[in-house]
C-alpha cells in the first residue's frame, strides 16, 4: 500500500496538512475531463465565480502562468494571520499578510518548485521564503496556496486550493527569514 502525504514545513517545524479545499477538487476534476470539458466554475479569492481552465493550452499553461515573482502576494504560497478553522469551501485566506516592509507585513520571495526524492518518498515541493523587514515580530497563523488559471479568453484569476491553520502561531522576528515548503509526497 502506498499513500500520498501532504506536508507543510514552516520554519523548522513540520505539519501534516489538512487543507485541500473544494477549488482543488474542481480543478483536478476538470483536468481529468476530456477536452473541451476542462473549464470549470471555481470561486476566486474575491468570492466571485469564475470559469477557468484546468488544462494546458496556449493561454492557460496548467494552473499557473509562471512561478510568482518576489513581492507578488496574489498567488503562490501565502501567509496570513487568521486562525478560523478551515472550511472545505474556503476561497481565500482569512487575513492575508501583505507583502511589504510596513508594520505587520512580510517580504515575499520568488517561489520555486522541485520534483524529486527517492522511493518510497517521491515528492512535489513548492517553496517560498518570507522575510520580516519591519521593526517588530510578525505572527503567522495560516498558510495557503493560490494558483492562477485562465479563462478561455486568457483572463487570469486567483484561486485558493489549500489553506492550513497552524496549531500554534509562528512569530517571525524582526530581520528574520522564514522558509515555507509544501510537500506532496508518496509514502509506503
Amino acid at each position, binding site marked *: 500500500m502506498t499513500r500520498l502525504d501532504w506536508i*507543510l514545513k514552516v520554519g523548522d517545524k513540520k505539519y501534516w496538512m489538512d487543507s485541500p479545499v473544494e477549488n482543488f477538487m474542481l480543478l483536478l476534476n476538470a483536468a481529468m475531463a*476530456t477536452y473541451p470539458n*476542462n473549464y470549470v466554475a471555481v470561486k476566486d479569492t474575491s468570492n466571485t465565480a469564475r470559469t477557468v481552465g484546468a488544462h494546458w493550452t496556449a493561454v492557460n499553461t496548467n494552473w499557473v502562468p509562471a512561478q510568482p515573482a518576489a513581492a507578488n502576494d496574489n498567488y503562490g504560497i501565502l501567509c496570513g494571520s487568521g486562525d478560523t478553522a478551515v472550511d472545505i469551501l474556503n476561497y481565500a485566506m482569512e487575513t492575508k499578510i501583505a507583502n511589504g516592509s510596513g508594520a505587520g507585513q512580510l517580504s515575499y520571495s520568488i517561489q520555486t518548485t522541485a520534483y524529486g526524492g527517492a522511493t518510497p518518498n517521491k515528492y512535489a515541493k*513548492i517553496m517560498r521564503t518570507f522575510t520580516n523587514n519591519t521593526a517588530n515580530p510578525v505572527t503567522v497563523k495560516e498558510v495557503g496556496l493560490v494558483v492562477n488559471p485562465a479563462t478561455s479568453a486568457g483572463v487570469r484569476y486567483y484561486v485558493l486550493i489549500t489553506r492550513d491553520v497552524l*496549531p500554534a502561531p509562528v512569530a517571525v522576528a524582526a530581520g528574520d527569514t522564514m522558509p515555507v515548503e509544501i510537500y506532496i509526497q508518496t509514502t509506503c
Partner: protein
Amino acid sequence: MAILITEENKDRPPKQPLRVTWAIEVLDKDMKTVIERKSGENSLVAGFAFMIFNAVSFADATTEHDTAGNLSVGYQWFPNSMSAVSCFPTTSGYNHGGWTPYGIVLGTNNTGVTADDYKLNTLIAAGSAASQLNYWPQTNNAVVTDATTSSFRQDRMFQNATAGTITVKELGFYSLYRVTTNAFCLCRDIIADPGTDILAGQYMFVHYTITITEA
C-alpha cells in the same frame, strides 16, 4: 487544522487529506451484478505527485517514468487543446482509440504496489481476442461537496467478448501525455489471489473515487 509532526505521529498522519478508492462490479450478460469488491487502502504512486507538480509548476522540464518506462517531461501533461488530445478518455476512449492505453486499466499480476510503480505489471490488452477485454469509454462525474468532504468518481466498463474467463488481479489509472504515445500511471492497486474472474460474456464496471476530507 494542520497537525504538528512529532515522534509519535511522524510515520503516519492521523488522517489522509486526499484518498483514492476503487470499487468493482462484475455484471452478467443481463447487466445484473454478480460480484462486488471495494478497496481498503489507496495506492497512489509517484505519478500522482508528478501530476500535481506539473499543475503548479509550468514549464519545468522535470521528468518521470511514463508507462513505457521512458523518462518523459510532464510540463504539458494535461488535456491539451493544441491538438485536441485529452489525457482522460470519454467518447474517444473506446479501446483507447488506438492510442497508448490510458484511463482506468486492468491487469493480471498482483505483485505488491511500490511508490515508484509506473505501470501495471501485466496489462490486459484492449480488444476481443483471447485474454483481452473491450475497454469502454470512461466517464468523469462531477464534483460532489458536503460539509466536510469533496469528491468525484471516474467510471469505466470492461467487456469480456472472448470465449474464456479473464482473471483481474490489478487495476490502475493512467493519464495520457499531450502526445498520444505515452502516459503516466497515477495509481495502481492489486486484488489478492485468486483475483476476480470475468466470465465469457460478462462485464466489469470499475469506479475510482478521489476524495478530500476536512477534519
